[in-house]
């Protein structure tokens, strides 16, 4: 029933690789043309994480990795690799540090320091084929839980493992389950929070796309442990492919009787419904999310009561993040001792981060808790592009905070991040280099959070706007030193008086940049100067007479004719006319345009 092929060609068709479906089509055609369709199987996989090199192709049994593949490469790949067994060198990954070509998927430095527990199947199995998940040990944990463990045993196992919520706050998962189990209610629910909205966060999307069954299996196990028969997966509507894969996965699991009535012949039954969001960042907050499932505006309400006591339709509800559920089958199968052997004293297991921004290896990584920031940035991330210096990394999205060079040796876990003023959050890591203005960076996040405020409570709605006005003034050179005290005051109010985490954490990026880069704020206010040369109001463009060769490129490209000069002689910018668009700097081949 399962045909054996001599070779499998895996292509990442995750939504991070927009060009991949055309490659699949080209490959199908080529294989048919060469009568190889019965020998070589095309497997469409989810994201293996190495997004900066996509579209990716992995050819087994050799395990050859080809990067940035285009449809035009397909005939050559088939001719050389599939037929003649040779590698196409120009498509191999070149390690930027060792300047060497790397042939095999497993040898790439990007993967070496990772520990892939919940991403184990991502990039290995076909997410649209439940059999492949089962072949990798899928649903075995569910069977073990149902037939060899009591619901109490399961909760005990999760408690002992030390698993904490992967949505950001880090609440102990086993304890949360126990609260819901012990809460009184005629009906109870389980929700999977897949409303991943942080800019630069795509961990949950990738898992839902690449290994949807691991999340489903985790939810069914949670249902058995807590004594619940109904679950919802709330997923952003923007994640079209994740929703498609979830739907396929649920229907296949239903067909096999792995969800539905009498699972695996036991007397336990569990149903799962997918709920699509309609675009609202605040719906990632659990009470807002539940309001949205109920068909209302996604506005948060005060807690307590917590969802474990009064959740969906007023009933006890257990709500966990995608990654939390994905960890559950692994823990049940391998035991709590195994899980708690990974990580630090207080934070067990692994953490998945989405590495983005000014870093060489943009992508999805899974690392043991306790790894240092430096290892992530340099060993896995491959350092900062164009030889620039690392300046900071924003963790936890717009509601998080940043870490600077001082923290490069800090082992990362829930507690250490909190101490530095950043947060674990859901796992976004946005890296910026020395040319980034931290005031503008903070202003940018603040603008995001104030735009996303649902407007229900005053501290968030008004406090955020007020703080944004102050920051606007500072980046425009109209700031006063007293503004910094005012920011701190506002932040205190917002943290204490806002209804939900959105308002409470909105000041985060401002506060942490103010703590780490206070001198930059002061430079904007006192010297009316932007040290990174980014805040347009505070910079002026000049041409370095020594470097300028008089090629005329800037003159030709200036949209407002602010540049003058004779050919082969140094040019000049008329400051009065200049709109500071930066075109001259971009086009100059001699690095002669500078800002002050």
């Amino acid at each position, binding site marked *: 029933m399962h*045909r*054996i092929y001599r*070779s499998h060609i895996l292509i990442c068709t995750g939504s991070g690789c927009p060009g991949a479906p055309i490659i699949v089509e080209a490959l199908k055609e080529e294989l048919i043309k060469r009568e190889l369709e019965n020998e070589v199987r095309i497997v469409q996989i989810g994201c293996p994480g190495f997004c900066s090199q996509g579209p990716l192709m992995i050819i087994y049994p050799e395990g050859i990795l080809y990067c940035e593949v285009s449809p035009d490469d397909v005939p050559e790949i088939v001719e050389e690799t599939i037929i003649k067994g040779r590698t196409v060198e120009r498509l191999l990954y070149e390690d930027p540090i060792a300047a060497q070509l790397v042939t095999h998927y497993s040898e790439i430095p990007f993967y070496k320091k990772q520990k892939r527990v919940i991403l184990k199947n991502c990039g290995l199995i076909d997410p649209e084929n439940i059999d492949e998940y089962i072949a990798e*040990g899928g649903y075995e944990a569910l069977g073990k839980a149902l037939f060899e463990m009591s619901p109490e045993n399961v909760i005990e196992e999760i408690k002992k493992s030390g698993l904490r919520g992967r949505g950001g706050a880090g609440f102990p998962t086993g304890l949360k389950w126990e609260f819901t189990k012990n809460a009184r209610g005629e009906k109870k629910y389980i929700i999977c929070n897949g409303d991943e909205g942080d800019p630069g966060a795509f961990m949950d999307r990738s898992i839902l796309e690449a290994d949807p069954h691991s999340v489903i299996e985790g939810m069914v196990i949670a249902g058995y442990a807590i004594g619940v028969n109904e679950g919802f997966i709330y997923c952003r509507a923007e994640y079209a492919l994740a929703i498609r894969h979830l739907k396929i996965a649920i229907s296949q699991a239903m067909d096999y009787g792995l969800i539905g009535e009498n699972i695996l012949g036991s007397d336990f039954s569990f149903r799962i419904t997918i709920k699509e969001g309609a675009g609202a960042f605040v719906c990632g907050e659990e009470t807002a999310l539940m309001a949205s499932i109920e068909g209302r505006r996604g506005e948060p309400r005060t807690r307590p009561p917590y969802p474990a006591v009064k959740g969906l339709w007023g009933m006890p509800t257990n709500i966990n993040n995608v990654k939390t559920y994905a960890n559950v089958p692994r823990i049940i199968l391998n035991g709590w001792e195994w899980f708690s052997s990974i990580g630090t004293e207080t934070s067990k297991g692994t953490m998945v981060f989405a590495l983005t921004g000014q870093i060489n290896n943009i992508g999805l990584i899974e690392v043991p808790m306790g790894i240092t920031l430096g290892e992530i940035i340099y060993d896995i991330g491959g350092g900062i592009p164009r030889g620039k210096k690392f300046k900071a990394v924003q963790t936890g999205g717009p509601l998080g905070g940043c870490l600077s060079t001082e923290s490069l040796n800090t082992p990362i876990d829930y507690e250490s991040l909190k101490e530095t003023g950043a947060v674990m959050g859901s796992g976004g890591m946005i890296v910026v280099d020395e040319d980034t203005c931290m005031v503008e960076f903070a202003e940018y996040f603040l603008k995001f959070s104030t735009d996303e405020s649902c407007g229900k409570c005053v501290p968030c709605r008004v406090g955020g706007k007020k703080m944004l006005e102050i920051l606007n003034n500072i980046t425009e050179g109209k700031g006063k030193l007293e503004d910094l005290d005012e920011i701190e005051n506002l932040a205190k109010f917002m943290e204490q008086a806002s209804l939900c985490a959105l308002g409470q954490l909105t000041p985060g990026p401002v506060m942490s940049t103010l703590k780490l880069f206070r001198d930059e704020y002061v430079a904007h206010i006192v010297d009316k100067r932007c040290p990174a040369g980014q805040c347009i109001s505070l910079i002026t463009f000049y041409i370095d007479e020594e470097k300028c060769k008089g090629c005329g490129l800037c003159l030709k490209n200036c949209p407002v004719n602010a540049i003058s000069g004779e050919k082969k002689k140094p040019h000049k910018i008329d400051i009065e006319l200049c709109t500071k668009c930066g075109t001259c700097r971009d086009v100059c081949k001699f690095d002669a345009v500078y800002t002050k």
Partner: protein
Amino acid sequence: MPKIKSLEELRKLREETIKSMRVRKSTSTKITVGMGTCGIAAGAREVMHAILDELEKRKIDANVITVGCIGLCAEEPLVTIERGGQPGITYGKINVEKVPKLIEEHLIKGDIIDEWVISRG
């Protein structure tokens, strides 16, 4: 799709599926088939299919890979078997009829068929 009614049935399904996924795992046995123009002309593709069928029938874990011409065109189809890190044994003029015996002797009994060997190591 029939429902899976017990943990045993789940495990059985898993055993069946694992085979089709084997190609994505490295095994200790590597079988290389020469697939240059010369090899294909001499019937290498049919030989490779026969090998795949035989491996499945005998439930043997092995990776089958293809290579281009190694210059011994007169001896095609060429099949090289490497096991457990040992140097490879290359057999020449393998045809579909010879495949079952080759798999039986070399991979199951562990005996090299000397008269078919054209190179060792």
